[in-house]
């Protein structure tokens, strides 16, 4: 069977499964809609959290990013998993004890301020929308590359599926669907990785294969895989793979901003409300990180396997002898080759980008660039002066990996189903945050306190439906800023939310003035630094101009430190928070039964 048939079968089966689960587990009350009635077992909740956490970017892009960054790619691996540790230790158990549905609920009550609540809601909605648009785009991209549909049609199909189970099932439907999606995505990630690990190192476990001896057709070559890749890289003029190229201080600040920012993502925090007891929240946090770690420790292995295969098979090969996948992905603009020296061979080396910008061109009959006499697509981009002739999009490293390694076509179909599972699970979780924020925090808590439970449930469903439509629109017409903003959402979350929540739990002295001025200073500082270097004056965006050599990606850490300083300073200079807040903080700190004598 062909790749397309396999892809249709596997994607179709997985979608049927998700819809079946949604029908079986649809929500009947706001409690079930927001937090699945708090009745989800820890293991299932751990899987759902892992699926929620791992977005289209984790599945499709991360290994590719790492394979082009080498050792520095560790900032994503450590950043996203290390942030999870902060979440599980510093936030989740306390917010779970607080016992309401959302982070804005906590901010609003702890800082006894409607303004603070509304600010938190707006931040949560903004972060969620930028994220969800990226997921929808991911769905469209998978559909278009594997099934030959238009990106638009792909996004519409994705919208329909998410609409169905998020609007109908609420958190309950989403949770059980995410359990299934986790299984699909981890299976789809591991199968190609295991195959390729055996091919390259005779070693079925990718995490061990990464450090094992390089082998060709089962015969060991007397050199480790990583040394082999280092050798190939330096031979072609790339940086040594296992060495870093960013400055230590920059890596330090980027990793910290990613960690702290991840901990503040609203759609993951809400997951801890779906279990019965604080003890279950802790245990499900453990399961979730274990499930996340399976993918995150495989990703660096996939990165090395793919990079090695690529550097082995492409540089110096004549275009007409290039493998089939090379030409297929050329059609999508993810690979582009320009024959600068006219020798008909593909030169790929570390001398810089092959041409200016991403490949563009629409002159040919199929709205794709025309082909030359030699067969390659001709792009409009101006070639650069260096000797490198090849443009490779980083996403290829995962998407084309099975083809590069000549794996059977069902594995390729499986990767498509896995990518969709990763994108849909994250999108659904985010949509739920948006609908909860609108129906609960805005409609019920701010504008219409006397709304009935039934009315709130309807409002939540309408909000979820509206959010799907808006997200789909952004998926089809991505505003240029989305890609930029997603990359910085972590820094913004780190410099605003995180200190306010942490101080709210661990200090009784922090008051509303401190919290709000801290958030404002943190986010203003971080946003202006990012906007200046990324949008106003991109030409200045070089290490010499940065503050202490910290790139805009890492500046959120500085914003966070400023936030802490300002929040503490202002709180100490202004009156203590009211007595009721001290009781509230106690309720968050101690198990509920320990508070029984005070009747709370």
């Amino acid at each position, binding site marked *: 069977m062909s790749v397309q048939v396999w892809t249709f079968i596997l994607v179709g089966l997985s979608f049927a499964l998700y819809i079946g689960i949604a029908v079986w587990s649809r929500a009947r009350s706001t409690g079930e809609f927001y937090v699945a009635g708090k009745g989800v077992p820890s293991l299932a909740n751990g899987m759902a959290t892992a699926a929620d956490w791992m977005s289209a970017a984790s599945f499709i892009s991360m290994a590719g990013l790492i394979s082009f960054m080498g050792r520095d790619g560790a900032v994503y*691996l450590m950043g996203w998993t290390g942030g999870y540790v902060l979440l599980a230790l510093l936030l989740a158990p306390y917010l779970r004890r607080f016992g309401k549905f959302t982070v804005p609920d906590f901010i609003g009550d702890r800082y006894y301020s409607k303004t603070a609540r509304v600010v938190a809601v707006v931040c949560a909605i903004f972060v969620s929308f930028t994220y969800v648009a990226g997921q929808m785009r991911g769905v469209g991209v998978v559909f278009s590359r594997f099934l030959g549909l238009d990106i638009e049609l792909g996004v519409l199909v994705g919208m329909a599926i998410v609409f169905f189970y998020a609007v109908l099932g609420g958190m309950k439907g989403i949770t059980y669907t995410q359990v299934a999606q986790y299984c699909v995505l981890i299976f789809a990630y591991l199968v190609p990785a295991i195959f390729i690990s055996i091919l390259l190192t005779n070693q079925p476990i990718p995490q*061990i294969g990464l450090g094992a001896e390089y082998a060709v057709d089962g015969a060991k070559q007397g050199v480790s895989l990583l040394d082999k890749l280092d050798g190939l890289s330096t031979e072609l003029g790339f940086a040594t793979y296992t060495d870093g190229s960013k400055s*230590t201080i920059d890596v330090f600040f980027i*990793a910290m901003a990613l960690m702290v920012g991840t901990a503040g993502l609203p759609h993951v925090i809400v997951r801890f409300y779906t279990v019965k*007891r604080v003890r279950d929240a802790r245990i499900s946090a453990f399961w979730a990180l274990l499930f996340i770690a399976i993918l995150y420790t495989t990703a660096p292995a996939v990165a090395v396997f793919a990079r090695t295969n690529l550097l082995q098979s492409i540089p110096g090969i004549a275009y007409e002898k290039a493998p089939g996948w090379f030409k297929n992905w050329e059609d999508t603009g993810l690979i582009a080759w320009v024959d600068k020296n006219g020798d008909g061979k593909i030169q790929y080396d570390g001398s810089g980008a092959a041409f200016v910008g991403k490949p563009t061109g629409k002159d040919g009959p199929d709205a794709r660039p025309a082909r030359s006499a030699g067969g390659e697509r001709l792009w409009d981009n101006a070639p650069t002066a260096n000797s490198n002739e090849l443009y490779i999009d980083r996403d290829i490293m995962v998407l084309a990996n099975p083809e590069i390694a000549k794996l059977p076509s069902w594995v390729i179909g499986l990767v498509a189903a896995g990518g969709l599972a990763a994108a849909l699970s994250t999108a659904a979780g985010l949509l739920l945050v948006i609908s909860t924020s609108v129906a609960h925090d805005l409609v019920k808590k701010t504008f219409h306190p006397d709304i009935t439970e039934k009315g709130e449930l309807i409002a939540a469903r309408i909000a979820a439906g509206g959010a799907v439509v808006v997200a789909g629109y952004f998926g089809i017409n991505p505003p240029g800023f989305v890609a930029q903003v997603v990359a910085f959402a972590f820094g913004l979350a780190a410099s605003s939310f995180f200190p306010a929540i942490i101080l709210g739990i661990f200090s009784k002295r922090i008051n509303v003035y401190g919290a709000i001025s801290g958030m404002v200073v943190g986010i203003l500082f971080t946003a202006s630094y990012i906007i200046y270097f990324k949008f106003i004056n991109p030409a200045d965006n070089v290490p010499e101009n940065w503050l202490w050599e910290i790139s805009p990606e890492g500046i959120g850490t500085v914003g966070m430190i400023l936030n802490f300083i300002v929040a503490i300073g202002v709180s100490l200079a202004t009156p203590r928070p009211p007595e009721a807040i001290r009781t509230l903080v106690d309720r968050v700190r101690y198990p509920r039964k320990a508070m029984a004598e005070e009747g709370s």
Partner: protein
Amino acid sequence: MSKSVSPEARARYWRKNLSVLAGLLSVWFLVSHGCGILWVDQLDKIRIPGTGFKLGFWFAQQGSIYVFVVLIAIYVLVMNRLDRELLGEDDE
């Protein structure tokens, strides 16, 4: 129902909670930002015997994640025990 809990017992519980957090987060910091970033070049001079891993590279891309999983496992065990100590055998 559980026995009532004195304010002193609660204060002790919170102090223990904070010291558990301090311990775990120190390890978290030393492994990720320490071994994976600050000392990575020094550690890269050492190889893990029998593998192709340079130690710093391994911490940055593999080891730190394994340690994170272990940290949360320890946290779960210790905190559940602290809860039991505070409340008696019957927990929340």
